[in-house]
Every structure is written in structure tokens, then in C-alpha cells.
């Protein structure tokens, strides 16, 4: 009996204009979206390859203080299905000693041309959510009210069939209609992936697509049951369609925007610029403090080919007296210990900022979960690893890696080694006397003679006695460090199980809402006045 009713529903839907329009819409929009997204992914891969090369170049280092690698996050191939927030956030992090990774840098947005941003903001899951939720409602909004108006519901129920059977038949009929469309969309997606030479999916990724498909089925079931429920609540299909369309607009377009706006109004976050001013000031003060720990520069300690430390603490000298090198080496341990500890203080400021941002995001997310469409988007982005949690996991992995590198340097006593800041053997560096002898072309042999000359020639620039330029070392000729035993960045942990764990709440919400709506439709239809 259920099958007869289901087949009747299926056939009725199949020959209806809405099915043809829906099918054509999918046929047009899905391949278009896939082509756009695959191209976007390709351009992200190209950018990633370039960034990877830059990162490799950055790691051709001569001194350990430059062990500040760039961690580049590979573009997520599943972003073809759901972009999530992956295109709004950066994709690489430059590690430093003076700050923990705070946010990723790199190109954001989908297009190379930022002015085209608004034209490329849809992905496969968004199109599915928009088109198929509308179809689900269009196939069910008149399931009861339409049949009542038509008079067929009376004919149907004049037979010895429980209303529950009629409803189940209608549900099955809607499923039989919608499922082929959903499967067709996913088939197109799979074909596009298989055909494209630039995209290669692993078994894990295919499994994730399977899970997104499962989520899609629950999502469409939710909208189909919503349509059934509305249809069982109204006597006229005109009223049902109006309510269904209002619900669709509310869930698809109003809720995500309003929830973001409400969260923004309720929980304000300070500006990132203000934070940057504070943290930069903090780090610069800490540098000043740290430099004091070195103590007075001893007599004879000076340099002639030296790069000042970068904000991140990278420093290199290729020309300095042994006294300077020893003074600097001894100071480094305490200076870098202080700076690494200070990074924790800076991180507290940044973490507070991130926590506030996260609280705002969570509030927006929770508010938006009123909408099954938003729940589906969150769920699919989580399964496609393009959600905020995946980004946070990436950032956490870079922070962990930074700790590993620091630990590696500590274990090898590299902070207080000459190799930390100079690639030149200290034993071949000129002494103070040798330096003056060299610069004056032999006129002055010792530091004491130089000081005497200064006393004897008051007002004269000491430069006037120099006849030769500073001794200079071609840094490019210096040997690079062997980094073979330096810990490698292991990437972001994240199997399907972890994504499922992340998306369990969303999945549970979708299942619960669809079951609840089915139950409500069931109750409403049992009480439905068929006259």
C-alpha cells in the first residue's frame, strides 16, 4: 500500500513542471559551480606550490636564529564541495621566536582580483542547499493541502488505509523523487572530480564525500518534512506555499545574516589593528628589556658586518671581534629565553582577542543553527575540513611545531652557540688589533694605539685614519646549515573520525529536527480535516 502511494507520488512529481525545472536547474548550476570551484582550487594549488618554494628558500639558512620556517597549509581539495571559511582565512604561518602563531597570512578570497569577490561565493554544498531545499519544499508543500483541494484525499481516505500509511507513502514518494536528484548532483560532482586532472581524491576524501551525501539526505529530509508539516497544517495549498517560501527565505538567507549581526552586536571584539599596536609595542619593550640582560658591551667588542635582529629574533653577523662574538653568544641564551617567555605574554593578549572572536563566532553559529540550512553548511564544511575548527587545528599544530623547534634548539644548546648568529668560524675572525691594523693599512697596530691617536687628534673623525673599507664576507659563500635532524612539521591531525566528532552536534541536530518534523507532520496529518 505504501509503495503504491509512493509510486503515485513519484510519478506525479516526475511529470510535473517543478521536477523538470528543478532537474534542469541542477543540470545547469551544479556543473557550473563545480567548474568554478575546481578552477579556484587549481589556482590555490598553484599559489601553494609557489609558497612552498618560498618556504623552502626561507629554510636555506646559515645560522640557527633563522630557523623560523614558513608553514604553508595545502589547499583543501574538498573545498570544491564546501569552501567553509577556508577562503576567508590565510594559508601560511611564519614561525618566530618572539610570538606564537596568531593568525595565518596569505591570499584570502576566491578570486585573484579582490574586486570580483562577490561573484565567486558559492560552492557545491551551497547550491545544493539552496536549490534542493527549495525543491524539497515544492514537492511536499501541497502533499496534503493540494490533495484536499483536488478532492483526491477524500477518495484516498475513503479506503481502508491508515493515515499513517498515506503519510509514509507520501514521504517515500518525496524521497523517491528527491533522492535521484541528489544522487545525480553527487554523480556530477564525482565525475567532475574524476575527469579533472588537477584534482585527486584519496579514499579518505571519498569517504568524506559519502558522509556529506548522507548529511544532504538528512538535510533534504528536513525540508521535505517541513513541507509535509506545513501542508498538513493548512487547508489551501496557496497558504502552504507562502508559508514554505517564507520559511525557505528565513532559513536560507535571513538566519545566517541576522545571527551574524546579532552576535556582532551582542559580543563586540576589539579591532585587530589595536591589538597589533599593543602586541608590537609589547614585543619591542621586551626586546629592550632583553638587550639589557647582555650587560655592558666589553672593551674590544664590536662588529662590522652585522644585521640587527628582526622582530622575530633572527640575527646574523659575519664580521665581529671574538670578544663581541663571545659577549653576544653568552647574552643570547638569556635574551632568547626572555623573548620566548615574553612570547607567552604576547600570546595571552592575542589569545584573549582570539577567544573573544571565537565566542562571537560560536554565538553566531548557535543562533544560526535555528536554520537546518546553516546546520548543513556547518556540517559539510566540517566534513570537508574547511571549517573554523580545521583552521584552529592548523594554527594549533604550528604553535606546537614552534615549541618543538625551540625545544630542539634548547636540547642542542644552540641558543648559546656561535652558530646561532654567525656562520663564520669565530677563530678566523679578526681580533680588535687585527681590525685596526687592517683598516689603517698598518699605520695603527693595536687598539691602544688607536685610542692614543684619538686623544692626539681631537675633533678628527676616526674615519679619517681608515684607508681601507670594512672587511666583508660574502654571505652567499658561507655554508648552509644541515637541517636533516631538525623536527619536521607533521601537518594537521584529522581523520574522518575527528571530523565526525566535530560535526556530531550538527548531525544530531539535523537528524533530530527531521525526526521531529516528521513526527509533527504525522500528528498534524492524523488530525487533518480532509473535507
Amino acid at each position, binding site marked *: *500500500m505504501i509503495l*503504491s*502511494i509512493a509510486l*503515485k507520488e513519484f*510519478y*506525479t512529481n516526475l*511529470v*510535473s513542471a517543478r521536477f523538470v525545472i528543478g532537474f534542469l536547474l541542477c543540470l545547469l548550476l551544479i556543473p557550473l559551480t563545480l567548474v568554478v570551484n575546481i578552477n579556484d582550487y587549481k589556482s590555490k594549488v598553484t599559489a601553494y606550490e609557489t609558497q612552498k618554494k618560498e618556504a623552502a628558500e626561507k629554510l636555506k639558512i646559515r645560522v640557527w636564529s633563522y630557523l623560523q620556517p614558513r608553514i604553508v597549509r595545502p589547499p583543501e581539495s574538498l573545498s570544491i564541495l564546501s569552501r567553509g571559511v577556508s577562503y576567508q582565512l590565510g594559508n601560511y604561518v611564519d614561525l618566530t621566536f618572539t610570538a606564537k602563531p596568531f593568525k595565518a597570512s596569505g591570499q584570502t578570497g576566491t578570486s585573484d582580483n579582490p574586486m570580483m569577490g562577490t561573484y565567486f561565493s558559492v560552492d557545491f554544498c551551497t547550491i545544493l542547499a539552496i536549490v534542493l531545499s527549495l525543491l524539497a519544499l515544492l514537492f511536499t508543500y501541497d502533499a496534503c493541502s493540494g490533495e484536499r483541494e*483536488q*478532492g*483526491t484525499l*477524500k*477518495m*484516498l*481516505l*475513503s*479506503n*481502508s*488505509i*491508515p493515515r499513517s500509511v498515506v503519510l509514509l507513502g507520501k514521504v517515500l514518494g518525496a524521497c523517491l523523487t528527491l533522492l535521484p536528484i541528489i544522487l545525480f548532483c553527487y554523480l556530477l560532482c564525482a565525475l567532475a572530480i574524476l575527469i579533472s586532472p588537477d584534482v585527486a581524491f584519496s579514499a579518505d576524501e571519498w569517504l568524506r564525500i559519502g558522509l556529506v551525501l548522507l548529511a544532504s539526505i538528512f538535510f533534504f529530509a528536513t525540508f521535505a518534512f517541513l513541507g509535509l508539516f506545513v501542508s498538513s497544517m493548512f487547508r489551501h495549498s496557496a497558504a502552504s506555499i507562502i508559508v514554505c517560501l517564507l520559511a525557505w527565505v528565513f532559513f536560507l538567507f535571513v538566519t545566517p545574516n541576522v545571527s551574524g549581526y546579532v552576535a556582532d552586536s551582542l559580543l563586540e571584539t576589539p579591532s585587530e589593528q589595536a591589538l597589533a599596536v599593543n602586541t608590537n609595542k609589547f614585543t619591542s619593550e621586551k626586546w629592550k628589556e632583553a638587550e639589557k640582560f647582555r650587560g655592558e658591551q666589553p672593551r674590544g667588542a664590536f662588529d662590522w658586518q652585522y644585521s640587527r635582529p628582526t622582530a622575530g629574533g633572527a640575527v646574523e653577523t659575519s664580521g665581529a671581534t671574538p670578544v663581541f662574538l663571545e659577549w653576544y653568544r653568552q647574552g643570547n641564551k638569556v635574551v632568547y629565553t626572555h623573548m620566548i617567555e615574553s612570547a607567552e605574554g604576547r600570546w595571552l593578549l592575542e589569545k584573549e582577542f582570539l577567544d573573544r572572536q571565537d565566542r562571537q563566532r560560536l554565538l553566531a553559529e548557535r543562533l544560526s543553527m535555528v536554520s537546518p540550512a546553516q546546520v548543513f553548511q556547518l556540517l559539510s564544511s566540517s566534513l570537508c575540513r574547511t571549517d573554523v575548527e580545521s583552521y584552529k587545528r592548523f594554527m594549533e599544530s604550528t604553535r606546537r611545531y614552534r615549541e618543538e623547534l625551540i625545544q630542539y634548539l634548547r636540547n642542542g644548546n644552540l641558543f648559546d652557540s656561535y652558530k646561532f648568529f654567525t656562520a663564520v668560524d669565530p677563530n678566523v675572525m679578526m681580533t680588535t688589533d687585527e681590525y685596526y691594523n687592517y683598516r689603517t693599512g698598518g699605520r695603527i697596530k693595536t687598539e691602544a694605539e688607536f685610542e692614543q691617536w684619538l686623544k692626539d687628534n681631537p675633533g678628527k673623525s676616526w674615519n679619517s685614519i681608515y684607508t681601507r673599507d670594512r672587511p666583508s664576507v660574502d654571505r652567499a659563500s658561507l655554508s648552509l646549515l644541515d637541517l636533516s635532524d631538525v623536527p619536521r612539521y607533521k601537518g594537521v591531525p584529522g581523520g574522518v573520525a575527528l571530523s565526525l566528532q566535530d560535526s556530531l552536534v550538527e548531525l544530531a541536530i539535523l537528524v533530530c529536527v527531521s525526526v521531529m518534523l516528521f513526527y509533527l507532520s504525522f500528528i498534524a496529518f492524523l488530525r487533518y*480535516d*480532509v*473535507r
Partner: protein
Amino acid sequence: MLQATDLTKRYEDGLLALDHLNLQVKEGEIFCLLGANGAGKTTTINLFLNFIEPTGGQALINGIDVNKDPLEAKKYVSYVSENVMLYGNFTARQNLDFFAKLGGKKNLKKEDYHMYMRKVSLPERAFEMRLKNFSKGMRQKLGITIAIIKDAPNILLDEPTAGLDPKAAAEFIKILKALRDQGKSILMCTHDIFRAKEIADHVGIMKEGRLVMVRTREEFLEEDLEKIYLEYMQEAVVA
């Protein structure tokens, strides 16, 4: 057999649509319920089909209380509405097939359906025609075909000849007579006093939810039924 015992229906808004209706339609009988709009005729049908719950009394189909065991009771009844609206995108045969299955007849073949449609004089060209192209008369005939296929001992008809041209109505009445001759109990609500006189074994006149008059065929043939009916209707208007 169809039987109403003190069947009463008062709607939520307080309207008493049916007031202690008592009637019985025996096997091989046609009972025509006459009455103005709002007299309670369709309410009676709706109560027999369990579309609404009675406020009091019982509607019995073959002795089964419809309110207590609607699914069992509906096995023994067929229904033809005033405006048979089946599925427009289905052909006549597909509609029959669908409703036959709902009525418990699962093994009918294409030829069987054609045979049933011939029985009610549906033109051959209509058998595989989509229903949206059917005239009202053809749809009513298809409606009664569904009842015939279900082969339930009782048939409820709600204004089945309303809007039919005289030829189509005459054909429809002929089918009903044949069904009565097969022993079916038929309860027909109608405004059409002439058709009622033609086929009814009993005629009941309803007014404001009450069955105000019942006559057997012998009785109403001797009386001037039109005059009695009009008198009741006028009283209703005056009241």
C-alpha cells in the same frame, strides 16, 4: 447495510450539523437524502467515512461502528464524490489501478480495467487518456468504476449527478440501478429530486440537520414528492 443511530454532529463553532439522525439502508436498496445546502447531507456522508467524529450516536457499516473501527468499516464501503477529481496526470486505467490497489484488488490486468470501463460505457479512446482531458461526466463514470472494482457492499454518493448533462446523468443512474440489483446498499445525497424519484427505494428529506421526513418508494410515488419537498424547503427559508 448502512445504519445511522441517533447520529449527531455539532461543530466546534456550535453549529448543530446533524441532529439525532436515524436511518437504515438495506441490501439492494437506494436511499436518497434530499435537502438544501447545509441540511446535513454531506455531514452524514463524512461521518460514515470517518472524516469527522460524531458528537453522539453511531454510524454503522455492515454493523461495524465507523468511529470505533474505521479501517474495518471502510472495507465495506465505496465513495463517489460530487466532483470526482482523480489524478490528472494519470490515465483512466492508471487511476483505476491505483485505487483498485488501495481497495485491496491487487491482481487486476489491463484488460480487466478495460472491461470495467466498458461496463460504465466509457468510450474506448478514454481508457488510456490522461484524466485532465476528461469531461465531468467521464470522471463521474470513472468514480463509479472505482466503486465497482472495489466491490464493497455499500456505496456512498455525494451529489453524483450534479452538473452532469441529462444523457450522462441518465447513464449514471442506469449504473446505480445495476449496482442496486447486485445487492449493494446505496446512500445518495442529492438535490436532484427527479433522479431521486427515478431510482430511490427510500427518500429522506433533511432540514437543518434533522431527517424530517422518510418515505418508501410506494409512499412517495403515491404522493406529490416535489410538492412535499418544496414545502419543507420553503419552511426552511421562512424559518
